[in-house]
């Protein structure tokens, strides 16, 4: 630990100014969101900036308007499971893709990018057809289960996570593994003992991306869920619904619930961001 921090690229003063600017850019609208969550709905519709009275009851009422609690649990479970599965598969797939040459390697990578370009709206109806025929023909009840959602999200999360890991693994020098192989480790052994410990930052990022696929989805979850498997993102729409014939949306509850929905993700990230330090940066493995 020398006095000079080599990883700090920007001059300290500039760094401070930039952090302040970025935090303002990020947080000012978020503070508006928090303010709106305690503002009466009519004030919001009328464009009032400062609430006529603080409507803290929005935070109490939102649990009654929708089943927000079970929605949050469903969202967490579905998004986390699909993210973890995606990252585990992605690590394996990316390792094969970066360490071996085989026929179809490049087309496979190209297909993964191709999948990122498919609009979800296109797949919605066919996905439902396939899942519901699984019930009809295989006797496998999928629609309305968490498993259906997890499978659907994997189709988007897995390619994303794989590409992130491919890019990350390419930066890990193969010489590190060769030493391991010489010491008698299997390929799997080198992956587990040498590559994975060096890859935490890539895995954390892949995990966040894969998690957000399921966390943010509204389109698929709105048709693939039953009341007891509904996710929070779908529940939120109830607050925002503008009913025909004159009713003011429940803006306050929507903003309160949204603030609440982002808390678990930020906390999870806060917990995991310590892994965003790789042995590679320290250069220790070289010795």
């Amino acid at each position, binding site marked *: 630990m020398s006095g*000079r*921090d080599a*990883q*700090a*690229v*920007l*001059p300290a003063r500039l*760094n401070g100014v930039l952090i302040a600017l*970025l*935090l303002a*850019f990020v947080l000012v*609208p*978020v503070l*508006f969101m928090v303010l709106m969550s305690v503002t009466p709905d009519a004030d*919001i519709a009328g*464009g009032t*900036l400062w609430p006529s009275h603080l409507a803290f009851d929005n935070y109490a009422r939102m649990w009654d308007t929708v089943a927000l609690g079970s929605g949050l649990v469903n969202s967490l479970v579905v998004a986390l499971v699909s993210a973890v599965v995606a990252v585990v598969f992605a690590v*394996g*797939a990316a390792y094969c893709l970066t360490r071996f*040459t085989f026929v179809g390697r490049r087309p496979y*990578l*190209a297909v993964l*990018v191709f999948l990122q*370009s498919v*609009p979800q*709206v*296109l*797949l919605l109806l*066919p996905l439902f057809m396939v899942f519901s025929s699984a019930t009809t023909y295989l006797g496998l009840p999928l629609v309305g289960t968490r498993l259906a959602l997890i499978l659907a999200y994997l*189709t988007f999360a*897995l390619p*994303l996570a794989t590409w992130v890991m*491919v*890019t*990350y693994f*390419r*930066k*890990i020098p*193969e010489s590190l593994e060769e030493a391991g192989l010489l010491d008698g480790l299997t390929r799997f052994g080198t992956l587990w003992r040498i590559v994975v410990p060096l890859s935490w*930052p890539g895995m954390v990022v892949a995990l*966040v*991306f894969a998690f957000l696929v399921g966390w943010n989805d*509204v389109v698929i979850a709105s048709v693939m869920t039953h009341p007891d498997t509904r996710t929070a*993102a779908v529940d*939120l729409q109830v607050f*925002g619904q503008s009913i025909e014939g004159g009713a003011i949306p429940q*803006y306050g509850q*929507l*903003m309160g*619930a*949204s603030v609440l929905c982002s808390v678990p993700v*930020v906390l999870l*990230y806060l917990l995991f*961001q*310590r892994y*965003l330090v*790789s042995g*590679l*940066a320290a*250069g220790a493995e070289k010795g």
Partner: protein
Amino acid sequence: MLPGLALLGLVVALPFLLAVWMGFIDLDQYTLRDWLGAPFIGLANFVEALTTSSMPHSLWLSVSFALLTTAIATPIGLLAALTVNGRVPARGLVRSLYLVPYVIPQFATGSLWQVLLQPDGAVNKVLRALGLGGSNEWLIGPPAFWALVAVDVWASWAFIYLMALSGLQTISTELYEAADLDGVSWWQKVRYVVLPQLRGPLSLGLILSTLQHFNNFTLPFVLFGSPAPEAVNVLPVNIYQTSFQVFRFGLGAAMSVLALIILAIPAWLYLRGVRLDAKPEEAGA
């Protein structure tokens, strides 16, 4: 590993093939129930999509929107990653706070900005206080496009930030120390150490971010509804309206497939160009 990949291929491939098939049949409210019997009409949907429909306009809008938002978000994300790579006070907290707009559900982001941008909303009030006009209609007509760009950048710049931050972890401290010994400025360090080392993650970030912005449905849909003002009738909203609101599933599928082809070719060329799909030694990374 292979059986798993095969299963996923099935979960992805089957719906996808069905979707492509939909592009060749006249699937609408009248044929939906017995969709296997919907008339096969060859390329008619594709011809309609390219000639009489509003798809070419939407495609152009979506491409410019995706490129523009990525171009704006990239420097912000990169700078943000640099600010929290070194030791700064409360680094974990700052790193996480940067993420907040990205993790707020997009439906809520859309509603938030719809309120802020309404005629009497906070944005106009702030502009008025600063003496910069303030009677703008942000959600109708041509300004809507710029409102969408701004909101989308705000909501998703953290994607590039995360890619860059993880990439920065692969840069050895020795490289910085060598640069320090040469007495270079911070800008030269960014230019000659950071950017070359981040080539992989940033190239990937650029393409994925462009594709994600292109396919963003929720944000424009919540902000502007459907039918959307022409300036923001981006492709996903157009496809949604065509398929689910007026039931032209065949036409909607044809539009998606065309968009996919038009997207996939440049994406593939790009991948080859930046050699992201090469093995490490071939790329000389």
